[in-house]
């Protein structure tokens, strides 16, 4: 086993060596055996960088109920400031989007509604007027949008709305359903990307085909109308010998890339015997995603992958992160797009090792530095929210 690990380490060295990693920092101050922080959110949007200030949001139960917290590390600071609580009622799946000057927009689910605020000086208020959850945010330039899953009859459907920041106030337009009509089955976990030309891409989990299929739609008119939903996965729905409805795929994530492009990454169980794999597809600007590509390398083929996310930028940089237990315990794994394929998977100091390192979220800042946050269940003392920054050598 040690020989295999050594071989894996040697094989991962060239990719890992491309990045220089800072010493990891602990973000959360309340750590204990019965305190459980979570980084899950729609499009895994729990970290953002604004003018060098790093913001991280998560949920934990330190106060007896799930509440949402935000911690920031100012550009010149060596550590994170103690976190602030965002919510009063039961809170889940907070997300963060950078504004200018070290400010952020934060949104979350609280008491079954979506709420948001401009941080640090804005006041929190409801963004949704109906039962809603799984909010996500995306922006390009001054255009800022939110999407969430909102109750519409028996099921939830996906809505998108433009947000306007006026000073420290956050105004919300009327949410626009991606599709007209009442949903025929469940929709959830939306991901948003605003490409360089201002087009909106929204992807979500959808069950209209009697199994979970990531669908995608586009708006070229600032969210007033959306194209008919298309499948992200190039698999088909349908039973096998009269059984079932199709393989599962879940938790789509999106990132804008290059001048007009969008990249999608999701968990896919088309090979149903090896757990979920990480798959990706590219839209170069035609507003149509192409063939699906398996993201993780062959060392992860027979291992289940979890918590996949993608980050990209206008320069074309693209990093995919997830966790898997190919070395025996969960570790954070990354890969980069080399222009033709995904490179060998690699990990980094602090993101791998004894215990479980899982649930990555990430952001690329304008200078190309990669900021990664993850959960570290390294010992019985409790789970730490960890952060590390990497720059290209």
């Amino acid at each position, binding site marked *: 086993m040690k020989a295999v690990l050594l071989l894996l380490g040697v094989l991962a060295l060239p990719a890992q060596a491309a990045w220089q990693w800072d010493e990891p920092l602990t973000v959360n101050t309340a750590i204990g055996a019965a305190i*459980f922080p979570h980084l899950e959110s729609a499009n895994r949007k729990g970290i953002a960088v604004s003018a060098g200030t790093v913001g991280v949001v998560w949920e934990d139960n330190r106060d007896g109920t799930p509440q949402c917290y935000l911690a920031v590390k100012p550009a010149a600071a060596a550590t994170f400031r103690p976190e602030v609580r965002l919510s009063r009622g039961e809170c889940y799946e907070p997300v963060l989007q950078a504004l200018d000057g070290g400010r952020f927009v934060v949104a979350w689910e609280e008491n079954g509604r979506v709420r948001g605020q401009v941080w640090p000086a804005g006041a929190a208020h409801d963004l949704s007027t109906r039962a809603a959850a799984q909010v996500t945010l995306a922006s390009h330039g001054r255009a800022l949008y939110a999407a969430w899953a909102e109750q519409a009859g028996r099921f939830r459907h996906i809505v998108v709305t433009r947000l306007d920041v006026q000073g420290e106030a956050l105004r919300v337009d009327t949410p626009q359903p991606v599709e007209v009509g009442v949903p025929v089955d469940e929709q959830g976990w939306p991901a948003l990307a605003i490409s360089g030309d201002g087009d909106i891409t929204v992807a979500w989990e959808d069950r209209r085909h009697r*199994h979970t299929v990531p669908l995608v739609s586009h708006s070229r008119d600032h969210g007033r109308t959306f194209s008919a939903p298309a499948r992200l996965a190039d698999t088909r729905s349908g039973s096998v010998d009269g*059984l*079932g409805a199709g393989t599962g795929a879940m938790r789509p994530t999106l990132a804008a890339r290059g001048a007009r492009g969008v990249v999608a990454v999701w968990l896919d*169980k088309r090979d149903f015997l090896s757990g979920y794999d990480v798959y990706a597809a590219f839209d170069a600007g035609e507003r149509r995603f192409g063939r699906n590509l398996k993201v993780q390398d062959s060392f992860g083929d027979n291992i289940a992958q979890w918590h996949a996310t993608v980050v990209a930028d206008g320069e074309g940089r693209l990093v995919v992160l997830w966790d898997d237990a190919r070395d025996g315990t969960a570790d954070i794994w990354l890969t980069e797009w080399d222009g033709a394929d995904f490179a060998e998977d690699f990990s980094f100091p602090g993101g791998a090792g004894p215990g479980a390192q899982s649930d990555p979220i990430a952001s690329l800042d304008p200078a190309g530095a990669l900021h990664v946050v993850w959960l570290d269940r390294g010992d019985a003392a409790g789970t730490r929210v960890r952060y590390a920054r990497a720059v290209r050598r």
Partner: protein
Amino acid sequence: MRSVRWLLAVCGLWVGAVLADPPPGYDFVGFDAGLAAAKASGKPVFLYFGRYGCAWCDHTNKKTFSDPELKKLYSTHYVLVYVDAESGRRVTLPSGERITEAELGTRLNAFATPLFVYFTPKGEKIMQIPGFKTVQDFRDYDRYVRGGHYRDKTLLEFLGGKS
């Protein structure tokens, strides 16, 4: 009262929206309700970890869980819990941690569905069994669990010793 009714209605819709494919005719309940019922009744938990549209779950439902004697055996002696492998519905683990049903798959290292997990009435995991299983398999698992053999034998040792 009106607002309570409205809240219950919304909660009911929400729960109804995320439950998927348990075998028909069984009284499967959600994770939290099931663990609470097991604690109160002293019955072990039989957790069916399925996936919406899963072909092997469908096959197991039709070939195995359609057996009336098996239905009677498991309905009588177990608290039946169904979890949807891709759902965002929230569950509370015995540790107090609240996670989604999909995240429970991560914690169980669920490789494939269906996955069947047996818990003690206190919520301690006894074993997990992946994939299609026959009526006889489930009878054997029942003898192993309710007979308490898991305390001193692995399942393989127990099955190897059966006549």
